[in-house]
């Protein structure tokens, strides 16, 4: 496949580009859904093609084709250069690329059990059993599904990169929905988005979907008669690690994307409340807050060997002892921001999508407390778990999250179950109130397989290591 990428890059350079790179990607995806004990859908998708990027002046051009012939690859390179020339008609500042070691390499993610070769019947039986059990335990609608991705890509650049990677990802999810007279409640497992990683089918087996099916169905039904989450202007809030993963994703991960900070996403995804002049000095949260973006974490969903610009995966400090110290970046955004190197965070979700700044594994480093200790240390508060809804402003500052389930905490003990729990806050104020952090044994690499960004839209796979946390003085119980 390298030959097609070579042809595209050579054609782009011949057409006047000062830099060009091309990716051939061969991606396969398989998903299966079960509903109420029956398999409802099996979908298999494959796409293979080439995307080429050309830089002329400060203007980028990108063209993608599914036609994998030398002639089509050359035409794609020429077309990318023509598009770059059109971009240059509405030019920006001079654009450079941060230097990166030029590598010729191969990388692949580790799997114990290749999910594409596990028999369909085995995978289907798992979903059928889980949904049957949920129905037997009170679910009105029981859903379960799995997804498998198998991607091979070949990168060539005009600087001499020649890298191929084979990345396998999979995961699963299930949920139980119950209908009351006037409301609907739902419980999900392992989380609202399931759990996904750059691992084999062993990840799904470890989840034990069937072993958790009865519990979530019963909890969903119990929620129908549970009291509403009380409304408090300020209370102690303990958040489970799955919801924390989403909290990190939305209020830290997107906020530190350098393209947002530079204004490149201003009209769509939004900007960021962070100002580059404060990098290295701004207090983002309490001293307990340490966040890294680390694409080298084994098995996490945001892991890879090289990003789509050929920058090797490496850990990047994002927040250190509560101070903002780093950003998610690529070669052009890093150069424009005056950073010395790319953060290696540029990816495209297919051959036909422009690589852009995406989260890798943006996560919270563990502390020395635990969920149990947090509950014991709380006189009057609420524990919330499993994300249900999420909304945050275009600067990634003002958020409101809802969880599927909550419990009152009274005098150091978990009390009544509560329904429709919500909390709201402002990023740095909220993170500044972090005072207890779960330990390494509670550290979970949550995977988010559906992070939307970009125009045309792209779906990113990101990882979020997280632990349970306690925050002080949080507003809870916002109602419509």
């Amino acid at each position, binding site marked *: 496949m390298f030959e097609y990428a070579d042809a595209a890059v050579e054609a782009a350079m011949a057409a006047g580009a000062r830099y060009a790179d091309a990716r051939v990607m061969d991606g396969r995806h398989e998903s299966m859904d079960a*509903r109420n004990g029956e398999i409802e*859908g099996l979908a298999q998708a*494959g796409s293979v093609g080439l995307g080429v990027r050309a830089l002329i002046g400060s203007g980028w051009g990108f063209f993608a*084709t599914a*036609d994998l012939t030398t002639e089509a690859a050359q035409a794609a390179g020429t*077309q990318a250069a023509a598009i770059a020339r059109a971009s240059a008609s509405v030019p*920006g500042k001079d654009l450079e690329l941060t230097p990166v070691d030029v590598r010729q390499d191969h990388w692949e993610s580790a799997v114990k059990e290749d999910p594409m070769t596990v028999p369909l019947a085995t995978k289907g039986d798992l979903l059928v059993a889980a949904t049957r059990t949920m129905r037997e335990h009170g679910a009105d609608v029981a859903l379960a599904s799995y997804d498998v991705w198998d991607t091979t890509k070949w990168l060539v650049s005009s600087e001499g990169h020649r890298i191929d990677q084979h990345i396998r990802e999979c995961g699963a999810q299930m949920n139980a929905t119950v209908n009351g007279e006037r409301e*609907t409640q739902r419980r999900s497992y392992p989380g609202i988005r399931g759990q996904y990683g750059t691992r084999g089918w062993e990840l799904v087996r470890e989840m034990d979907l069937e072993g958790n099916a009865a519990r979530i169905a019963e909890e969903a039904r119990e929620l129908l008669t549970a009291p509403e989450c009380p409304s408090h202007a300020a209370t102690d809030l303990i958040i489970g690690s799955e919801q924390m993963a989403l909290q990190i994703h939305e209020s830290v991960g997107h906020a530190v994307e350098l393209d947002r900070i530079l204004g490149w996403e201003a009209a769509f995804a939004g900007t960021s409340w962070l100002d580059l002049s404060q990098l290295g000095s701004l207090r983002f949260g309490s001293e307990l807050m340490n966040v890294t973006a680390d694409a080298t974490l084994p098995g996490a969903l945001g892991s890879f060997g090289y990003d789509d610009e050929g920058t090797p995966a490496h850990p990047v400090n994002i927040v250190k002892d509560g101070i903002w110290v780093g950003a998610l970046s690529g070669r052009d955004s890093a150069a424009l921001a005056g950073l010395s190197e790319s953060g290696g965070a540029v990816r495209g979700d297919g051959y036909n999508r422009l690589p852009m700044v995406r989260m890798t594994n943006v996560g919270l480093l563990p502390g020395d407390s635990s969920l149990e200790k947090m509950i014991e240390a709380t006189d009057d508060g609420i524990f919330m778990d499993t994300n249900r809804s999420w909304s945050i*402003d275009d600067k990634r500052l003002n958020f409101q999250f809802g969880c599927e389930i909550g419990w009152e905490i009274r005098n150091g003990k978990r009390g009544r179950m509560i329904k429709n729990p*919500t909390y709201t806050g402002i990023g740095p104020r909220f993170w500044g109130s972090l005072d207890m952090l779960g330990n390494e044994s509670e550290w979970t690499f949550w995977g988010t397989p559906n992070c939307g960004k970009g125009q045309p839209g792209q779906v990113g796979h990101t990882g979020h290591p997280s632990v349970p946390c306690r925050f002080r003085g949080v507003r809870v119980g916002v109602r419509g």
Partner: protein
Amino acid sequence: MSDELLDTCERVLRLVGTDAEAEVTLTSGTESLTRFATSFIHQNVADAVQRVHLRVALSGRVAEATGNQTDDEALARLVRSTLDAAQLQPVDPGWPGLAPVADAPAVEHWDGATASAEPGERAARVGDFVAAAGDFESAGFCSTEGVTVAFANSAGQQLSGRSTTATMDGIARSGTSDGSARASSASLADLDGAAVGRDATRRARESADASDLEPGRYEVVLTPSCVVDVLGFLAIYGFNGRAVEEGRSFARIGEAQFDPAITLTDDVMHPLSVGLPFDAEGTPKRRLELVNAGVTSALVKDRRTARALGNGESTGNAVAGAGSWGALPANLVLAAGSVAPDDLVGAVERGLLVTDLWYTRILDPRTQVVTGLTRNGVWLIEDGRIVRPVTNMRFTQSYLKALAPGAVRGVGSDLTLVGDATFGVGAYVVPSLHLASWNFTGGAKG
């Protein structure tokens, strides 16, 4: 082009043979998007789209697959692997069978010049937008899309169609405020980058140096962009036949669930609509009245939900890849009123004019409680006059209650195509609305 695609569909059906029910969809075209930010073009892409989708049922054992190669070998591989997968599946008791032979409505939203638009044509409109913004920083995109789709199934149904869409969408930024504007059409020639840029810049200028407003319930005037957001949630969680089947929907046919000013249809034949006249299962679309003068009158259904509900046929609202979500309308049209947008503002005693809603998420599907924020310009209205811009606010509001009987005070005459509907399915044609109450639960600063 469509004949070629139909030939390929037939090739695939021949490869499947006669033992299986099968449906094939071929899509071909070009999707291009020129994106700008900080007043320069920073991303500029084009994709020569090619896609083949196959679904087979072997005695009720169902599998589907998608590929992007159409040579003989690739198609044979696709057919073989899909049949192999189906053989390993259990029987799907909900399999509804294939769409019967039926003609699609004779409507085509197509403009050849838009389908073949050059990068320079999009860049020129971006340049016009940037120039119109003057000293204000600008960001947004200009896109063109032209696709031809062919469908065939082994029950004899065979359809093809083509559609173009062009959109100019952007913001201008004053330093303390953003203002947005957008325009969509089947024809790029209809889009004036300078006019859209002037509109966005006016909004940015008029919303500069905004100040906070106490949260609470206010009357609102929602622009078409906001109205599309509201309708998107009603569609996916309410009018969707699957949501009704599962007991998650508010929709009750025959009940006056909305204000009498609300009449809502799904209508690909509307002159402002874009898109194809048939759905992902090859069922022709038709004008479907979902709400008639406030009374819920129909649901949207694909073949599976129609069968499960047991009371009718597919309404032509199957969406490719929607999976367990169910059916969705792609061409909602909210009937226009007779009030000019400025007069909607003029009728407000004390309320807010909202340009865009942002990051809206459902809290409870049954009651349609949604939270989100305002964006790109909000103004306080007192006694029918705009008195000042206010900072963005968070709201937590039941969309159903917002349109409930007695809640709609005015419907605008400004029927507008909004090119990108909520949840990414289709494009809606809607006017502005004046609503009696909207629950703002917090300011931008918490």
